[in-house]
C-alpha cells in the first residue's frame, strides 16, 4: 500500500512537472507599463484600464489569442523614465512577446535594447517619430501615426480653417518640456518654412504643469493665432483653463491625441465647449467591442475602472493599443503556426500587420478606427487622423479623416533615422528579412 502511494505521488509529481511547462507553452506574456499614480495618473489610469480590459476580454471571451492565454502583468512607472526602464528589466526575464513603454522617455531608453533582447517595442503613436523607419529600427513600431504626422495634420486643419493661406499667422507650440513634448518641433519648423507662418515655442516644465501663467502671458504678448498643445497629465486641464482665463479662442487650441482626455476638457466646464484634439479612433461605447468588454469584463467585476468611463477617449485609446497587440500576436501565430509565439515572432507579426476594414468589422471595431497596414520599411503607416471637438459632454468627430503631409514628414523621418544611426556608433544594420507582402 505504502509503495503504491509512493508510486502514485511520484507519478503525480512527474505529471505536474511536465504539465506546468505544457500550460506555459499555451500562454503568452504581455507586460503593460502603466501609471495609475503620480502627476500623470489623470491620463494614465484611463489608458491602463482600456489596455487591460481589452486583453482580459479576449481571455474571458475567447480563452486568449488563438488558443494562447494572455498573461497580463502591469508594472507601475509613475511616468518616470527610470522606473519604466526598471520595470522593463524586471519583466524581460519572463519572455515578454512585446513591450508597451507608454512613455516617450522610456521608449527612447528601450530602443537600443529591443534588438538585443529580441523584444519588439510598440510605441503606439508616441515615442521617436524617426523610428517609423523600419530599415533602421526593425524592432520598433509606432503605428498608426507619428507625432510629426499629427503636427502636420494640425497645420492642415489650420490651413483649412483659415482658407488655405496662413502666411504671417503665428502658431504656438505649447509643450511639456520633456522628450515627448519636444517631438513635433522639427516638423513644425519645416512646415513654418513651407507655409510661411511664424512658429513660437512655449515649453512647460513638469513642475510648472499647473502653473502656466507665464506661458499664457507670452502667448498673449506674441498675439498667437493658433496653439498646438503637446501636453500630458495635469498639463492639459490647466492649459484648457488658462486658455479660457486668458480669452484665447478655445476652438483654436488643438491638442495632440494625448491631450484629449475627457477630464482635460471637463476642467474648463461650459467654456471648454469647442476645445479640439487630434484623434485616430472614435469615442463611445456602442461599438460591439465595447459591449463585449462590458459583458465579459465589467459585468464580472474584472475591471479596475469605472463602467461609465468605457467609451471615453483615453479609455478607447487603451483598447485600440491592445487591439494592435492582439492582432500582431494573431498575425505572428498565422505566420509561424505556433500558439505560444515569442518576441521574435511578434516582431514579424507586427511587420506583416494588415488591419483591413473586414478585419476591423470581425473584431467589433467597424467605424471605430481606420485600416492600418505596416510595411517592412515603414513601421508606422502615417495613417489618416481627424479632429475631435468637445461638445460640452464628450468628444465628437469634427473633421474628415486627413492625410498627414507625407511629402514633408517622410523625408524628415528618413533623414532623422540616418542621423540617429550616425550618432549611435555601432548601430546594427538590419539583418531581419522582410516578411512576404510586408
Amino acid at each position, binding site marked *: 500500500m505504502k509503495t503504491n502511494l509512493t508510486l502514485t505521488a511520484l507519478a503525480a509529481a512527474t505529471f505536474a512537472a511536465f504539465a506546468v511547462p505544457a500550460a506555459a507553452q499555451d500562454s503568452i506574456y504581455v507586460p503593460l507599463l502603466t501609471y495609475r499614480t503620480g502627476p500623470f*495618473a489623470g491620463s494614465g489610469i484611463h489608458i491602463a484600464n482600456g489596455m487591460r480590459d481589452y486583453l482580459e476580454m479576449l481571455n474571458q471571451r475567447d480563452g486568449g489569442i488563438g488558443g494562447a492565454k494572455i498573461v497580463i502583468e502591469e508594472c507601475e512607472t509613475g511616468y518616470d523614465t527610470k522606473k519604466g526602464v526598471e520595470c522593463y528589466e524586471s519583466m524581460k526575464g519572463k519572455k515578454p512577446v512585446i513591450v508597451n513603454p507608454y512613455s516617450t522617455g522610456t521608449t527612447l531608453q528601450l530602443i537600443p535594447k529591443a534588438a538585443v533582447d529580441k523584444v519588439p517595442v510598440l510605441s503606439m503613436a508616441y515615442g521617436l517619430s524617426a523610428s517609423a523607419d523600419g530599415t533602421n529600427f526593425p524592432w520598433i513600431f509606432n503605428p498608426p501615426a507619428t507625432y510629426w504626422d499629427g503636427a502636420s495634420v494640425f497645420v492642415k486643419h489650420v490651413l483649412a480653417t483659415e482658407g488655405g493661406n496662413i502666411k504671417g499667422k503665428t502658431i504656438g507650440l505649447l509643450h511639456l518640456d520633456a522628450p515627448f513634448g519636444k517631438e513635433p518641433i522639427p516638423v513644425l519648423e519645416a512646415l513654418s518654412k513651407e507655409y510661411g507662418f511664424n512658429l513660437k515655442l512655449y515649453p512647460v*516644465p513638469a*513642475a510648472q504643469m499647473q502653473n502656466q501663467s507665464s506661458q499664457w502671458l*507670452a502667448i498673449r504678448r506674441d498675439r498667437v493665432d493658433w496653439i498646438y498643445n503637446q501636453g500630458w497629465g495635469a498639463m492639459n486641464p490647466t492649459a484648457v483653463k488658462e486658455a479660457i482665463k486668458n480669452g484665447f479662442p478655445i476652438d483654436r487650441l488643438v491638442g495632440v491625441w494625448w491631450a484629449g482626455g475627457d477630464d482635460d476638457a471637463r476642467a474648463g466646464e461650459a467654456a471648454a465647449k469647442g476645445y479640439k484634439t487630434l484623434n485616430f479612433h472614435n469615442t463611445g461605447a456602442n461599438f460591439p467591442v465595447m459591449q463585449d468588454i462590458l459583458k465579459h469584463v465589467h459585468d464580472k467585476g474584472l475591471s479596475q475602472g469605472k463602467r461609465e468611463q468605457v467609451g471615453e477617449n483615453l479609455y478607447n485609446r487603451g483598447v485600440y493599443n491592445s487591439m494592435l497587440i492582439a492582432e500582431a500576436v494573431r498575425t505572428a501565430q498565422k505566420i509561424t503556426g505556433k500558439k505560444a509565439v515569442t518576441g521574435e515572432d511578434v516582431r514579424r507579426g507586427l511587420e506583416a500587420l494588415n488591419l483591413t476594414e473586414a478585419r476591423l468589422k470581425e473584431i467589433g471595431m467597424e467605424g471605430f478606427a481606420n485600416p492600418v497596414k505596416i510595411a517592412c520599411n515603414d513601421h508606422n503607416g502615417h495613417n489618416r487622423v481627424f479632429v475631435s471637438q468637445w461638445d460640452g459632454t464628450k468628444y465628437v468627430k469634427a473633421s474628415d479623416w486627413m492625410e498627414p503631409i507625407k511629402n514633408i514628414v517622410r523625408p524628415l523621418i528618413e533623414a532623422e533615422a540616418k542621423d540617429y544611426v550616425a550618432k549611435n556608433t555601432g548601430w546594427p544594420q538590419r539583418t531581419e528579412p522582410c516578411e512576404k507582402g510586408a
Partner: protein
Amino acid sequence: MDILFNVFVDPFLQMRAAPDLLVQTLWEGLVSGVLYALIALGFVLIFKASGVFNFAQGIMVVFAALTLVGFHEKGVPAWLAVALTLGVMALLAMAVERVVLRPLVNQPDIILFMATFGLTYVLIGLGEFIFGGEPKQMITEELFIPRGAIDVAVLGGRVTFQKIDIAAALIASLMIAGLALFFQYTRIGRALRAVADSHKAALSVGISLNQIWVIVWFAAGIVALITGIMWGARSDVSFALQVIALKALPVLILGGFTSIPGAIVGGLIIGLGEKLGEFYWGPLVGGGIENWVAYVIALAFLMVRPQGLFGDKIIERI
C-alpha cells in the same frame, strides 16, 4: 554686443513699450508669490516648532484637498466638508505627533527629516487608496469662490484680474496675517516661540512639547487645506499639486526657515522674479526657465545674507 543688448536693454524696452503687459506680469507674479508664501508658511510653522523640515507638506496639500472633494462627492455639503476635513487634518496632526515625532524625540534632526519622507509616501499611498489617482474638480462654486475676470484699462492697454486670483491673494494674505497675529499675541503663540528658541528651556517652564507639536501640525494642516483649495481651483486636484509644493524651497532659502515674514517676502520675491524672468528673459534661452530661475534668485540672496532675509544669524562660540 547683441547678447548684451538682449539681456540688459531689450527687456526694459519691452516693459516700456507694453506697460500693460508689465503690470499683468507683476500681478501674475504677485498671485503666484502669495500662493508660494502660503506653502512656505506650512514648512516654517513646523520647522519653528520642531526643527524639522517637513518634506510631507506638499502631500498634505494634496491630501487635504482630496479629502475635501472626497467628502463633497459623498454628498456632504461644502462647508460641512470643510469642517470635516479640518477634523481629519487634526487627527493627522495627533497621529503624526504620537506615531512619528514622540518616538523620535532627541534623535538627530536628519532622522526626523527622514521620518517626514516616510510620512510623505504613507500619505501618497493612503490618498491613492482612498481617493484613487484620478484628478478631481475643486468645489469652487460651492465654496463661493468667485469666477470670471475684471478687465481694467491700464496705460493704453488692458490688464485682466481673475476674480479667483484676487480671492486667492486676499484669503492667503488674511491667513498669513491671522497666523502671524496668533503666534505673536496668544499664549500658544508665545509657547511656540519658546519651543522654537530652545526645547529644553521651554520644557523647564512647563510647556508641553507634545501639545505644541499637535497644534503646529494642525496649523500646517489648515494652511495645506487653504493652499489645496486655491491651487486646486486654478487647475485641478491631483497628485501633481505635490510638485508645486517644492516651489517653496527657494522661498525658504530666501526667507529663512524660521521666519513668517521671511516666507511672505520670500514668496513674493520668488513669484515676481520667476514671472518677470520667464516673460522677459526666458525667450533668450528658449523659455522654460522659471523652474530654475527661482533658485538663482534665492542663491544670489544667500551670497549676501547666508541666513536668509529674515533668518536668525547663528553665532556658535567655540
